[in-house]
């Protein structure tokens, strides 16, 4: 199921379990296992849904790791799928409990639409994050001042303390770059991102310096797509591809919109976006050239 829009189906969005954050990758692993067991037993999503008093949509979202699990539901599904091995059952139930632990961002949940909370969970769980940015510097690389300028653009009516909390959430998110086993982040930006003076000249100059600093991180790669390419492969706009360490977990494409987001994980969709990203990476300035380009821009701003 590609599209996740909370509340878009009449039977969804009312279940409080679906609001759970929690270590997303654990939920995804659990979901992948449950799908295997279900398929091996020849049970349809409708039948599985009936067993736990839910719909096949709920089953699909469980199997994609998009929503939290109740221990009782997992136990009932395992029984339905004929999984009787006590060790396997216990491991699955232990994973279920682990998946229920809320993420660090729970304290900001009043600010977070659940479609974005899902993204935070995936971002924290990813081993490789590939992004293409057409408009703004990626959230993981924004300075506090730049982030504030972007927040004000997006939330004009918001009181100052709310803007402060939104900025602090964004900065907290960046902790992932300095944690012990950080993900690799490979980010391509259109040159327009660097030219648009968000927050004014000084803010932008510091932001460019920050970008130059992150190019020094061994697990971060930045590339700029120069203007002189008359057009490029990403006609559709910014997007992110998240990859997870577990070989069983598929890549996920994330596309943010104004009031919702798309999560694509069907192989055809992912392949298409992967192809576009690969073209962008091959067309863009190399990481080394990007660093010299940034240095020159800092001098000329």
């Amino acid at each position, binding site marked *: 199921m590609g599209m996740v829009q909370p509340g878009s189906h009449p039977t969804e969005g009312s279940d409080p379990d679906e609001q759970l954050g929690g270590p997303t990758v654990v939920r995804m692993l659990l979901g992948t296992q449950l799908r295997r067991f279900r398929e091996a037993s020849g049970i349809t999503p409708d039948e599985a849904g009936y067993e736990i008093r839910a719909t096949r949509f709920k089953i699909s979202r469980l199997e994609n790791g998009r929503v939290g699990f109740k221990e009782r539901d997992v136990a009932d599904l395992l029984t339905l799928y004929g999984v009787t091995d006590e060790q396997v059952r216990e491991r699955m139930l232990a994973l279920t409990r682990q998946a229920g632990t809320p993420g660090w961002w729970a304290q900001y949940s009043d600010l977070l639409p659940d479609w974005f909370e899902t993204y935070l969970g995936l971002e924290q769980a990813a081993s490789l994050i590939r992004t293409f940015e057409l408009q703004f510097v990626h959230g993981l690389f924004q300075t506090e001042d730049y982030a504030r300028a972007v927040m004000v653009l997006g939330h004009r009516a918001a009181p100052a303390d709310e803007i402060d909390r939104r900025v602090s959430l964004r900065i907290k998110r960046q902790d992932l770059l300095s944690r012990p086993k950080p993900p690799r982040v*490979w980010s391509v930006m259109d040159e327009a991102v660097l030219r648009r003076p968000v927050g004014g000249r000084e803010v932008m100059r510091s932001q460019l310096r920050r970008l130059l600093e992150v190019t020094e991180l061994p697990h971060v790669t930045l590339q700029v797509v120069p203007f002189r390419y008359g057009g490029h492969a990403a006609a559709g706009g910014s997007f992110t591809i998240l990859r997870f360490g577990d070989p069983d977990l598929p890549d996920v494409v994330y596309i943010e919109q104004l009031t919702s987001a798309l999560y694509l994980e069907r192989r055809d969709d992912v392949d298409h976006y992967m*192809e576009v990203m*690969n073209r962008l990476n091959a067309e863009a300035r190399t990481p080394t050239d990007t660093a*010299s380009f940034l240095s020159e821009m800092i001098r000329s701003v």
Partner: protein
Amino acid sequence: MTSEGSAQAHDWLDDAGSGTPESPTFDTSVAHIARVYDYWLGGKDNYAADRAAGDAALQAYPDLASSVRVNRAFLARVVRYLTAEAGIRQFLDIGTGIPTSNNTHEVAQSVAQDSRVAYVDNDPIVLSHARALLTSNPKGATDYIDADLRDTDRILAEAARTLDFTRPVAIMLIAILHLIGDEDDPAAIVARLLDAVPPGSYLAISHVASDIEPEKMAEMRERLNRMVSQKGTYRTQAEVSSFFSGLELVPPGVVRIQEWRPDAELEAKRPAAMWGGIGYKR
């Protein structure tokens, strides 16, 4: 690497329309050997055409999934041997492929942090992946060269950015020479590379075999050559050995890759249909 453009805002239009570099990897409707290899290794950087070709080959030779993993393990043992036992600190790795685990510089730098690796590939997507993902620790160095194995002049000229050709270099030709047909004289290519490195240097080769499980391998080659844009020529143990002419073979010589200094008995028994070895230049 030089900056190819100025950061001034007014020059956008100066050389506009230089367009997109075209290459076989951009055409995802035809299988590409680097992506097919990624598929066999269980990677996620492959497309429907690659998976179809990969599956066709697996049907012909089901042990292929093991064979490609055994080849990666061979690469790691070779690099470890060269770094830890032979004292090599410079590697010219031709045919990089899509990054996976145990890449040359990772293995080398885990033994000697100051190891330097020049990666060479002729595919823009492989290269952009290598530049982004095969990054050196600060004490060593990695570089990335856009060249075809046949273009040895270009390889050697550009590798000199990173490697000192007055000191020993290990030339790594891992699972690449079978993509050079006899009409392109692979032995002459190997000889030109060897001419450029000083005594004390090494040559490491792994090569798909035509004389291990010959029927299955012939069927696999036929299927792949029908479906993949890079054509394969598989060779015998004697043919692979001839690439080492003039060199001193490091024991046990040119053998099945799983039997080349295996870390464990079990490793030596894993199926693989490739020949491999290391030669030393006196």
